[in-house]
């Protein structure tokens, strides 16, 4: 009978044949036993692994990413609403009283740097608060 080669032995082992099979000669049985030991070693999980808190760490990281995204979305919306309300307010004032509207515009232009600074400071504080606030996940 022709001897079984390595591929055939591996195939037999994959199909569940064990080294106790009587139809194999000594060399084949020895090879099969060696493969059996190797398969056992290959199926042994590594001794090290991920920490027990891994899943909650991933969840926390993901939550942080989602919060950052929603903060950015909120800030952009807030700026847009603020600018739009200013434009709308000025437009309405123009319809009601052109003189008052011009007066308001002049005041706004006169104190533009103070107003810009106050608005800038407000959004800076908002951004800092969003970064520093501790959230419960």
């Amino acid at each position, binding site marked *: 009978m022709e001897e079984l080669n390595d591929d055939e032995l591996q195939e037999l082992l994959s199909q569940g044949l064990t080294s106790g099979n009587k139809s194999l000669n000594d060399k084949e049985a020895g090879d099969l036993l060696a493969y059996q*030991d190797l*398969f056992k070693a*290959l*199926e042994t999980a590594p001794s090290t692994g*991920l*920490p027990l808190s891994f899943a909650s760490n991933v969840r926390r*990281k993901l939550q942080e990413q989602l919060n950052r995204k929603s903060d950015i979305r909120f800030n952009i919306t807030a700026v847009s609403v603020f600018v739009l309300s200013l434009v709308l307010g000025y437009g309405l004032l123009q319809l009601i009283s052109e003189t008052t509207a011009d007066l308001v515009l002049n005041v706004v232009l006169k104190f533009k740097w103070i107003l810009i600074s106050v608005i800038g400071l407000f959004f800076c504080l908002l951004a800092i608060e969003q970064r520093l606030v501790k959230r419960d996940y």
Partner: protein
Amino acid sequence: MFDENEIVNRILRNDLRAFELLVNQYQKLVFFVINRLVQNKQNKEDICQEVFIKIHHSLPSFRFQSKLSTWIARIAYLTAVNYLKSNKGKSSYEYRENIDEYHFTDENPERELMKKDTSLYVNHLIEQMPHQYKTVLTLYHLNEFSLTEINEITGIPEGTVKSYLFRARKLLKEKLEKDIKQENIWKS
């Protein structure tokens, strides 16, 4: 029992508790792949985290055309391969070209100590193999994927997967046999 459909649907409704359950269910699978392909111990956990973040972002595009485990393993495999490509030179990724001529290098004292624990020694030998061999051995033996699933995960044709698997096991078996023979010579 872990119900894939229900968990995926809950995650898609922004339920992060469900996502944590998914991570718990598949963290071993992801770790086995990353652990085998990435050499740098410190980066392994970060890469595993990156894999799960990618999974969360890509989940809306998952159509249940394959098993969830196969899809997750594919993301883990591609992430590891990208990491190896970006760290070329520091890893064994360069073996890709001459994979058929691969053979184990000579002994070193550290290896002599490892031989006492077969499983540890086998893992040490696998670490030196080309990443294709490492991948098929891990996916087949540790993650218990079939050859067809390994083809889906890696994109390597099924016949090639089988040939890599057989050749890698033959190389390991021959190396172990050679070591045992050498040990017997030294003892006598």
